[in-house]
């Protein structure tokens, strides 16, 4: 029997406290492709909010904890590009203990964003799912520009049968969330999400798919408050739902 992929779940704060369903969907999809799943207890936050705000001293102990908890795992997978970018890239900007430098490098090599893991590591090209709706895709900034992940999620979306995938105008335009930016410069942040939502609406999509819950929370928050029809959906939810639909179709 082929070696199974062993995945340690890296659950970002927003997934833990606000969007657990999406993280559970990720678990379902990973199981569906035959991965073994482990939840590493004791994990909290990777430290990104404090890092982006300039509080490196506060982040260092969190980064050290995170490295110790995860570095020995085979794969570490998170449903978020920005949290993965934090671990994979920005941990190297932190003055962590000398003894952990090697572990930090190891961890960076084995940490993956969910869609990247599916396509580049697990070699999944087609999830054999079905989702008969019109969708568009929002490129999260860190996912696309820090990690260079743009094709993998699109490939997965296109593989779903019955889906009508349409690119919105400027799919990689920032949604305006930016962590603490969203309240430090609230009015600007709102003006930015307004533009994003206009692009989504004009695409005619029913769902805006994304791979970061933070962007999706920002976008959905605006869409709801302004009574727009379109909704957001995390790509893990899309894939899990599509796989379920696909199974039902087979039974039928």
């Amino acid at each position, binding site marked *: 029997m082929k070696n199974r992929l062993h995945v340690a779940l890296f659950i970002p704060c927003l997934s833990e*406290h606000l969007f657990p369903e999406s993280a559970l969907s990720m678990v379902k999809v990973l199981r569906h492709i035959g991965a073994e799943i482990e939840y590493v207890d004791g994990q909290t936050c990777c430290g990104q909010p404090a890092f982006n705000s300039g509080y490196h001293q506060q982040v260092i102990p969190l980064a050290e904890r995170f490295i110790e908890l995860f570095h020995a795992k085979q794969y570490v997978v998170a449903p978020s590009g920005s949290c993965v970018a934090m671990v994979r890239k920005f941990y190297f900007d932190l003055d962590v203990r000398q003894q952990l430098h090697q572990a930090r490098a190891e961890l960076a090599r084995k940490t993956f964003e969910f869609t990247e893991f599916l396509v580049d590591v697990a070699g999944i090209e087609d999830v054999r799912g079905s989702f008969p709706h019109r969708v568009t895709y929002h490129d999260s900034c860190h996912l696309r520009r820090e990690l260079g992940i743009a094709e993998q999620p699109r490939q997965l979306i296109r593989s779903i049968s019955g889906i009508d995938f349409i690119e919105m105008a400027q799919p990689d*335009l920032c949604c305006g969330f930016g962590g603490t930016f969203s309240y430090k410069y609230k009015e600007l942040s709102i003006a930015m999400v307004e533009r994003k939502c206009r692009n989504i609406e004009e695409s005619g999509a029913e769902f805006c798919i994304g791979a970061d819950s933070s962007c999706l929370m920002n976008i959905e928050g605006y869409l709801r*408050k302004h009574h727009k029809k379109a909704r957001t959906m995390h790509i893990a939810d899309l894939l899990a739902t599509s796989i379920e639909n696909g199974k039902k179709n087979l039974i039928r």
Partner: protein
Amino acid sequence: MNLKASETKAYIKAALKDKTLRQAVDKATQTALQKRAVQVEAEPAWEELRHKAHAIKCEVLEHLDAYLELFEKQAIANGMQVHWASDAAEAQRIVQVIVEENDVRSVVKSKSLTSEEIHLNKFLSEQNVETLETDLGEYIVQLLDQIPSHLTAPALHLSRQDIGKIFQQKLGVDYTEEPTELLAIARAKLREKFLAADMGISGVNFGIAASGCLVILENEANARLAIGLPRTHVALMGIEKLIPSFQELPVFLKLLAPSATGQKQTVYVNVVGTPLQKIAGEGPEQLHIILLDNGRSKILADPQLRETLCCIRCGACLNVCPIYQQVGGHAYGWVYMGPIGATLIPQYLGEREGRYAPFLSSLCGACHQICPVRINIPHHLLKLRKRVVDSGNSSRLEKLAFRLWAFLARHPKLYRTVTWFPGKLQLLSRKPFPVPAYCKERALGTFDVKGFRKRFIEMEEINSRKVAEAQRMRKE
């Protein structure tokens, strides 16, 4: 106009309500980006050029002292008078001496951001020297007594209707919003000044170290007139503007115009080495170059942030910035604006006065992606945010909040207890958890009382029960 940190927010709020401003900025930035995309598409070596430009600039910065010495030697040999200014006051004094020695009464200026940095117009007018901006955009913002709102398009924040009104009020002409007519009005006003001016002041796009020459790029021929007609030409250049030789110039010429305005090339590429009088028998008798430091050597000495000196002032990072696109350049409150400005502001003005600038970004990284010299602006902003915090210039409340949060995040059980609370409160009050700072025009997600961890554990228990059940059934 130099905004204080506290004024930035107020300016942004007002700018967001100014529909004309937003439309003007949006239209101008989108047009520049579309035209840029066409040029980039037509240049197969674009990425290679970016890498080259970055390498050349970094190499020059690495050995800037040697390049500056070489430049000075060659420039003097060419007949230029070379001056060194360590700060704005010294640069002003140098200009003052030249003005006095040559009995200068009127100055025509071509576009120079460096001159904004040292408040040259204000200084000259205090010396009773009439100073006129001759770049059309600069001319317009000068009429309004504003600073440029864009690195290459100073009046980008104004519509042509705005400009029509400004001309009507300030110049006493009939209202028109026809670009050709507006241009003709400005041209007529400027032409007589060019002919009468005693001195021309310009900026410099590139200093050529090996040849001691200055390269001045422009589209309107106003720089040609400003540096070619008056008796004296004073050029002002930041010390970081050098490139090794003419051999490297094409790399930058190919990158700059497409990035700035989406043109293949600027209309004019002026190269100045020797006072024109010596060669042509007419034009300037004197050519002065002022090499300005004004904080640059401090940045140069900082290996972490030195890369920000690679900037060639094209303005592409402004055009692509989703924040700049919303409110324009005046929101940044200083000479250099947009993403690159946000990195320069705290470096030039200090971490206290410039503390707001590195946070005026969502760190989306579009600026890094577009930068023709590949400056990693978002990473520099992150480093500068750290410096603002480390130098004690972040708010006390924020500091306390992050300390508390970091303490909790090191204690998972405590962390879970505290984070459980918003969900519970939400459930009891049947209202979304109130985060007024965030929620004005958008709803926050719903806090989940259980959270992923608990849900996952439950799911696992159900699954293992099912498996056990199935095994028992099989045995029976």
